[in-house]
């Protein structure tokens, strides 16, 4: 007997799946924004000559890169909310878990973004900073007006590739019961006894989205390749 596919539960489940996709995209977007902002700050700290700052940034990045995302999500889903509730004496029914898991995800991805941004900043020739200082700019002005704009231009392909990885990573919020696209697909499949079809469908959707995005990145890379 060969497995008999029955795809009939997918059309009716499309609204649920779409809601799930909206959650996935929302998490992705939040994590990218937080990741780039916080990642830039971390990268600047890491490269700064103030020892405590660079030590903190190095410790942060190395710690987050040493532990699995699943562990980070579990920390922020199970432990951190309890800690915060204890600390501030919140009533036990306040549910911080989802917000906390989302923050954990963003903090984790920031560590990876900060490494890309650090490499980007270091790819700008040193003379640029010297020139800024010779023109009387402060460190902040030089970074904001001269160094970072060039650094980000060099980093665009890597940042986008990381965004695709991040989008794939969002499926792991499954461990924290956030109803993302994968969680929704699994739930529908489990409910209808059609796990095989729903999982294959989820795989296909992720593949199409990520493959198309990576083709686009490659195309952009070719188009804007610095001469």
């Amino acid at each position, binding site marked *: 007997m060969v497995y008999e596919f029955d795809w009939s539960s997918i059309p009716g489940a499309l609204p649920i799946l779409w809601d799930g996709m909206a959650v996935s995209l929302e998490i992705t977007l939040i994590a990218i924004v937080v990741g780039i902002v916080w990642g830039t700050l971390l990268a600047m700290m890491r490269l700064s000559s103030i020892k405590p700052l660079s030590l903190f940034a190095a410790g942060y990045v190395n710690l987050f890169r040493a532990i*699995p995302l699943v*562990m980070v999500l*579990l920390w922020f889903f199970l432990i951190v909310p309890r800690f915060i509730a*204890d600390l501030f004496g919140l009533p036990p029914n306040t549910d911080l878990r989802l917000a906390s898991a989302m923050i954990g995800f963003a903090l984790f991805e920031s560590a990876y973004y900060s490494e890309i941004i650090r490499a980007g900043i270091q790819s700008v020739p040193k003379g640029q900073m010297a020139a800024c200082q010779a023109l009387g700019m402060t460190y902040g002005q030089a970074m904001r007006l001269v160094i970072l704009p060039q650094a980000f231009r060099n980093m665009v392909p890597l940042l986008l590739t990381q965004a695709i990885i991040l989008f794939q990573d969002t499926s792991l919020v499954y*461990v924290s019961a956030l109803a993302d696209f994968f969680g929704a697909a*699994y739930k529908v499949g489990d409910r209808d006894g059609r796990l095989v079809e729903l*999982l294959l469908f*989820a795989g296909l959707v*992720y593949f199409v989205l990520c493959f198309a995005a990576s083709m686009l990145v490659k195309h952009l890379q070719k188009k804007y390749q610095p001469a």
Partner: protein
Amino acid sequence: MNYQWNWSIFLQPTVVGDTTYLGWMFAGLQMTLMLSLSAWVIALLLGAVVGVLRTVPNKLLSGLATAYVELFRNIPLLVQLFIWYFVMPELVPQSLGDAYKQSHPVLQQFLAAMVCLALFTSARVAEQVRSGINSLPRGQKNAGLALGFTLPQVYRHVLLPMAFRLIMPPLTSEFLNIFKNSAVCSTIGLLELAAQGRQLVDYTAQPYESFIAVTVAYVAINVVVMTLMKKLEDKVRVPGYMGGK
């Protein structure tokens, strides 16, 4: 805050009484190591083959290898794992599927997890192998052919030994990744390190100690692997290249 720290919890016997809670942690650590190492061996072999195929002149072979890499790189690991665990046993010939479903549950979880991690990682290894081969000067291949080597011989004796030495640093980071990625396998119920951590929270009611211990274990794996790989990298580094002696 009135949390009662109690690190001695790890030395107490578990509720089931089979061992201590520390014993559970070590069982989890052992599972993580076994899973990651066995998957890594397969990933390295498979990745080398696929990576080579991506660079051969035959369009069909290189096209297939590209499709392989794109397939495994563009689907999230978690989705792949669930497909291996829940979907594949239904789609393979029934006798094989039945044999799988009748085997020990832990073996089922381990096999699905190992195959999943191995293939997922092999696609990444293949990309590194390909970039290693492509970074070699073309003269190397031509010189090999001019000396009368066949193409497979050129790969075996000239290109691959050099390529592998050049791609040691990115391979190290893939090796580190496989340990981290193995934590995903806790989702299908495999009792590796992360899953044991979760179980410890449920059984001991000492969440901080449990999670700190598991996190420290992951950091320790990371540090040990990095130290060992650094030694290996230093040993095989090619003089005259970036980062060479």
